[in-house]
């Protein structure tokens, strides 16, 4: 079977990935910790923990709550800042055969543009615009849930960024297609979705929310049907590649997203449960292709037929 290994590389707006599996931002750090448990060379790309212009400490703990089939998190963008990333993390990640996607979040439009300028000069493969983090009071959330917001930020960042631009969408909106089309119109090379769904969990004994931040973002298997529907809608609406995520745990889950139209997929929460999840998902996609004698993963993208 080794000679029959299907062709796994995919093209995300000019960026070629060795396979369609990407570690989702915020769930994989900068790859360091997971490198002890899994072979980073076998992962198509790593979208690193969201970077901000200056270092950030994030929210108070508890920052996580388990919910049925999912988790709520309110990390609040703790990160060492874009410059420390460049100095300390890029050299480490470059030792591996995996693409680097810099996920960026800002308080202001200027923050985003400045990070785009800085990162354009660095050895990374793409930038993912986090305009949809539910866990910070001001900033990125507000750009992501209106077409006006997404238009403005995509247009401005595009001017400053000389790398493929992935715009990551929030699912907390009435019409996701509209938001995706706005991002595409302003020059996004790809759309990734979904970020987390805004939620809450309560400790009935303390009569307070479990998260110190009160609210958080829901991810994990629970959100899969919502994510899948949105990925389908967006990939029907836009022409640029779509990166799908939300609850992917197995190769079969990934195949669902690819059939629905995703050119690549991201694995998030599943990494916490199983540090080798990304590699297992990749293997699972290969198994599916082998089962049906498909020799190029691109042949399953968007082939879902409606009933």
């Amino acid at each position: 079977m080794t000679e029959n290994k299907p062709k796994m590389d995919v093209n995300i707006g000019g960026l070629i990935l060795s396979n369609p599996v990407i570690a989702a931002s915020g769930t994989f750090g900068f790859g360091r910790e997971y490198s002890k448990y899994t072979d980073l060379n076998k992962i198509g790309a790593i979208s690193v923990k969201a970077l901000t212009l200056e270092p950030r400490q994030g929210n108070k703990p508890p920052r996580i709550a388990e919910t049925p089939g999912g988790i709520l998190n309110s990390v609040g963008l703790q990160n060492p800042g874009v410059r420390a990333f460049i100095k300390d993390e890029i050299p480490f990640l470059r030792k591996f055969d995996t693409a680097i996607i810099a996920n960026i979040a800002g308080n202001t439009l200027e923050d985003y543009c400045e990070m785009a300028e800085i990162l354009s000069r660095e050895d990374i493969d793409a930038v993912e615009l986090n305009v949809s983090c539910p866990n910070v009071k001001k900033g990125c959330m507000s750009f992501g849930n209106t077409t006006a917001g997404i238009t403005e930020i995509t247009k401005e960042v595009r001017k400053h960024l000389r790398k493929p631009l992935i715009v990551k969408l929030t699912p907390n909106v009435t019409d996701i297609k509209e938001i995706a089309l706005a991002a595409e119109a302003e020059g996004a090379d790809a759309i990734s979705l979904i970020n987390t769904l805004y939620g809450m969990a309560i400790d009935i004994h303390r009569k307070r929310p479990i998260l110190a931040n009160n609210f958080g973002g829901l991810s994990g298997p629970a959100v899969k049907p919502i994510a899948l529907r949105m990925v389908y809608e967006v990939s029907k609406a836009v022409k640029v590649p779509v990166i799908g995520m939300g609850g992917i745990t197995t190769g079969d889950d990934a195949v669902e997203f690819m059939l629905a139209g995703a050119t690549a997929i991201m694995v998030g929460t599943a990494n916490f449960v199983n540090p080798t999840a990304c590699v297992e998902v990749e293997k699972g996609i290969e198994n599916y292709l082998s089962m049906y004698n498909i020799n190029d993963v691109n042949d399953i993208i968007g082939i879902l037929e409606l009933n």
Partner: protein
Amino acid sequence: MSKVISEKVEKVEQLAKSIYRMTIKSAYISENAKPGQFVNVKCSEGINALLRRPISICKVDKDRGTFDIVFQIKGIGTEYLAQKTATSEVDLIAPLGNTFNIDAKHEKIAVVGGGIGIFPLLYLLRELKDVEKRAYLGFRNKDFAVLLDEFEANCNVLNISTDDGSMGYKGLVTDILENDLKSCNFDIIYTCGPMPMIKRVVEIAHKNNIKCQVSMEQRMGCGIGACLVCACKTKKEESWEYSHVCKDGPVFWSDEVIFDD
């Protein structure tokens, strides 16, 4: 170096109404674990209890290649774990976290534990040789007081308190500690348990100029330092930062931690 590893359960024993001891066969973990470390254990099949649960290592038997965890049933994860039997396997990431500071220069040490915080301290006591060891353990009531014989066997003086006086001193275990400190001294105090207890121990240690290590608890995601959810406020130069219990801890020096969150 920690590993993702599936190991055989050797024995599950009920120690009290809601407290269980599980002995797990694992050459790897028994060889590599150190006091203070924990395992991150999958507590269900499928998505029932999605996240792994962190549980401290309570004992290691290198000769037999086993280790023990002791846990109290709190919710769905620990409830499931308690149903495991001698034929089950457990899926672990272990050993995780840093370790208690053990120093040959320490001649007299104390451990102060409350509730489920006593288990990592017992492992520490077992590994500390040729030292004078005192243990101060606080429980809600006598029904939660487990493993006392093993504490007895592994320290020179054992002090017990309960909130309701159903066993030992009625009141805070830190009261006993404070009283003892009038007549004796320690080179280091190790503590683990409920936050109010930890804070009080740290206060007492600082007042008495005794070094102190605290083992912290926080809700975890990955358990390996990647997701950054298990934040713990610590000093950094003139200011502070969020360290992470799973990686920078669970053990911190008492003067590193800022207890205002």
